[in-house]
């Protein structure tokens, strides 16, 4: 069952650094958000593979919106 990484805060998506199928390690940056003139890197918590990316660069997200799904191997 993949786990979803959600946005922590209202922000716009500045960079999407992974695509479905990519392998990630703990602390791999998957998305960079921009909120209030700050870049906020969103990190993978554990190793796994990306099963879905819910956002595109430039879109606005609210706190709690899903960003990326990661499945443990």
């Amino acid at each position, binding site marked *: 069952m993949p786990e979803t990484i959600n946005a922590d805060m209202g922000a716009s998506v500045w960079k999407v650094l992974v695509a479905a199928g990519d392998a990630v390690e703990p602390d791999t940056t998957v998305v960079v958000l*921009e909120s*209030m003139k*700050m870049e906020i890197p969103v990190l993978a918590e554990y190793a796994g593979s990306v099963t879905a990316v819910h956002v595109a660069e430039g879109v606005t997200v609210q706190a709690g919106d899903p960003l990326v799904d990661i499945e443990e191997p």
Partner: protein
Amino acid sequence: MNQPFPRRLLVANRGEIARRIIATARRLGVETVAVHHQVDAGLPGVAEADLAREITGEPPVAAYLDIEQIVRVATETGADAVHPGYGFLAENADFARAVEAAGLTWVGPSPDAITAMGDKVEARNRVAAAGVPVSGGAGAALSDVDEAVREAERIGYPVMVKASGGGGGIGMTIARDADAVRKEFARTQAIAARSFGSDRVFLERFVESARHIEVQVLGLDDGTILTLGERDCSVQRRNQKLVEEAPALGLDPVVRQRLHDAAVNAASAVGYRNAGTVEFLVDARTQEFVFLEMNTRIQVEHPVTELIHGVDLVEQQLSIAAIGSVTPGFAPRQHGHAIEFRLCAEDPARFFPSPGPIEEWEEPCGDGIRVDSGYRAGLAVTPHFDSLIAKICVFGENREAALERAREALDGFAVGPLRTNLPFLRDLVDRPEFTGGGYDTGIVAAVTSRPAASTRR
């Protein structure tokens, strides 16, 4: 009113500073034009202006950076002057030129002064030529270890041994004597060659305990540069100021005078006109200082200067823009102590941005309390702009009194469910690191690494 001011002022900004500029203009009988992106339509400053025009852009910040659009709105609304506030286009020489080219008055320094101070290397060279101290070490690469030691002796210990291509703290080490320079020079050269593809190494003076102190200046058309005291802005996190106070504590009077003289020389070096701020890095131990940069605009923290001098800097900006000089009878007299706290929409523990809705918003008021805010209940703080939402400023006969006022003011501020750094600010004013004065730029790290001694609710 005998004093000529602009007749109709367009304020090319948003939030608290737009509202604050509009307030002074209204007091002086100057009509105001507010520009706002649609997401800012509900901000109090928009309603308080005589005229409001929507400007468009995507993302919204682009609207406030759109020179052509803003100048067009100024012309269409019959404005005869433009105040840029801070941030956005405030230090954009092209904007200043476009405003002047449209036949309007630019409330700020000349485009040339903006350009000169905007280029860090040029600024440094210009002020150094005017006798203002700049940081030791010219940034020139050193050819060998003996030259490095000679350079270190010239700069004075401790020095920072730095890889020319380094960054983010990599390839930087502190050396406290000649032996250390010999050792670190070779080591840094090796790291630099391996990591940055260049073995160029240079030295800089390392300030272990630094304070950030800045001097407010007003430049007049006849070349006079007036100073209005200094501000201590050492309470910073990620190089962002959180709390500022005036005057700076514990400065030797001779050093204070030298800081003010250096600020005058720096401003004179570029023929500065209107309000500006010269920033210095001051060694907390030796009180030696170097020029950091000059901000060619009104500063966020200008209220502390206003409070201890009994002046309105925006009024003086408008006066200088209109007649090249301060208002007749302008006679600032420094008195008392003032502190400003920046209220930011952010997670109080992690300092992360935290935009959100405002249901409750209650500002403290009373003697010695001034709140410059850009929001009210019923609005939301969006993620599109920086997190500063209000400035809570206090004044007292002395610092003790100002701190007492600060506790009252911070206790009296109610905001929610939007998360803000209010708990951090309230905690800070009870911390001995802050109340005792004598702090340096490490204070936020020091305070956040140690939990509050007592929890008060």
